[in-house]
C-alpha cells in the first residue's frame, strides 16, 4: 500500500518551483522523440502510468532526477499528460522516458484500447457518469 505515502507528498510538492535540471531533457532521451514524424504511433496522452514494485524499490538508485520523479508521481495512477504537467517536462520527453522505464519493468503503462472511443458501452458509461455531475456543489441534476 503506497497511496498514503503518495498523498503525504501532496500535490503541492509537485507544483512548487524548483531549479531547472542541469540535464537537458532531450539529452536524456538521447535525441529520441515521440510523435512528430516518427513512424511509431505515439503513446496516447491519456495513457495511465503506474509505478511497479520494482520501480519503487529502485527509487534511490536512479542516476537521473527525471526518472526518479516520474516513478515518484506514479505511485498513484497518472496520465502521461499529468506527469508532464506536474514535472514541467515536455510531453514527448515523458513519452520516451516512461516507455524506457516500462521496458525496464519499473513502470506499468495502460493505454486505452484503440476502438474504445467508438464503443457504445463506453460512451453510455461516460454519458451516465457526466449526467451525475451536479450543477454546482450539492445539487444533483434531475433526470
Amino acid at each position, binding site marked *: 500500500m*503506497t*497511496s498514503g505515502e503518495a498523498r503525504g507528498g501532496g500535490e503541492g510538492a509537485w507544483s512548487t518551483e524548483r531549479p531547472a535540471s542541469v540535464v537537458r531533457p532531450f539529452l536524456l532521451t538521447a535525441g529520441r522523440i515521440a*510523435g*512528430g*514524424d516518427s513512424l511509431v*504511433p*505515439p*503513446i*496516447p*496522452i*491519456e*495513457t*495511465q*502510468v*503506474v509505478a*511497479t*514494485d520494482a520501480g519503487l524499490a529502485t527509487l534511490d538508485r536512479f542516476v537521473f532526477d527525471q526518472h526518479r520523479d516520474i516513478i515518484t508521481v506514479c*505511485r*498513484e*495512477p497518472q*496520465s502521461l*499528460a*499529468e506527469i*508532464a*504537467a*506536474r514535472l514541467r*517536462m*515536455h*510531453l*514527448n520527453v515523458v513519452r520516451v522516458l516512461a*516507455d524506457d522505464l*516500462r521496458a525496464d519493468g519499473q513502470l506499468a*503503462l*495502460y*493505454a*486505452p*484500447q*484503440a476502438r*474504445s*472511443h*467508438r*464503443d*457504445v*458501452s*463506453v*460512451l*453510455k*458509461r*461516460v*454519458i*451516465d*457518469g*457526466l*449526467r*451525475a*455531475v*451536479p*450543477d*454546482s456543489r450539492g445539487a444533483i*441534476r434531475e433526470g
Partner: protein
Amino acid sequence: MVSELSPTPGARSVRDDDGRPQPPLPVKMVIAGGFGVGKTTTVGAISEIEPLTTEASITSVAAGVDDLTHTPEKVTTTVAMDFGCVTLDPTLKLYLFGTPGQERFGFMWDDLVEGALGGLVIVDTRRLDDCYAAVDYFEHREIPFAVAVNAFDGKIEHDLDDVRWALDVADHVPLTVFDARDRGSVRDALLVVLEHALARAEG
C-alpha cells in the same frame, strides 16, 4: 508491450490482488476554438483539478500555400496545452484537453486528438472566423463534434439558425449555447457532443 485497458472492466476494485493501484479507463474529449474564446474556462468549470498546463508538439501546416505544389510546409511547434479531468467512477476517468489556439494555420492535432470521444468547438459570435479551422479539422477527421456558442448566462443576441448559417456547419452538427463559467452548462454542452457520438456509434 503497453497493456490495453478493457473498455468494460469486470472488477470494480481499483486495487489489484497485490494491492497495487489499478488505473481507471481513460477517455478524452477535445475542447477547441479560437484564442481567448473560453477553452480553459470551460475545462476549469468542470475539472476536479485546477487545469494543468503541459507542453506538447503540434504540426502546423502553413495555410494559404499554393495548392498546386501539394507539399505544404510542415512545422512542428511546441505549444502550451491546458487540460483537466473528471473521475466519473473509480474505473472511468474523463480528460478534457483544450487544443492550443493556432487559428492562422491549418494544423494537425492528430497526436493529441487520436482516440477522442468527441470535440466541442467553442464559438464567440463576435469572432466567428476563429472557429473555422477547428470545425474543418473535426469534419475532415470524422470526429463527432458539436459547436457551442459561449454566451454569458447562456443567452445570445442572435438566432441560433443565423449562427448556423454564418458558420456554414452541416445540419447534422449539433449547435448549442452555453456559459463556459458554469459547471452545469459545460456538462450539458459535453453531453450534447456525447449524445451525438453515441448516435453515430449506434447508427
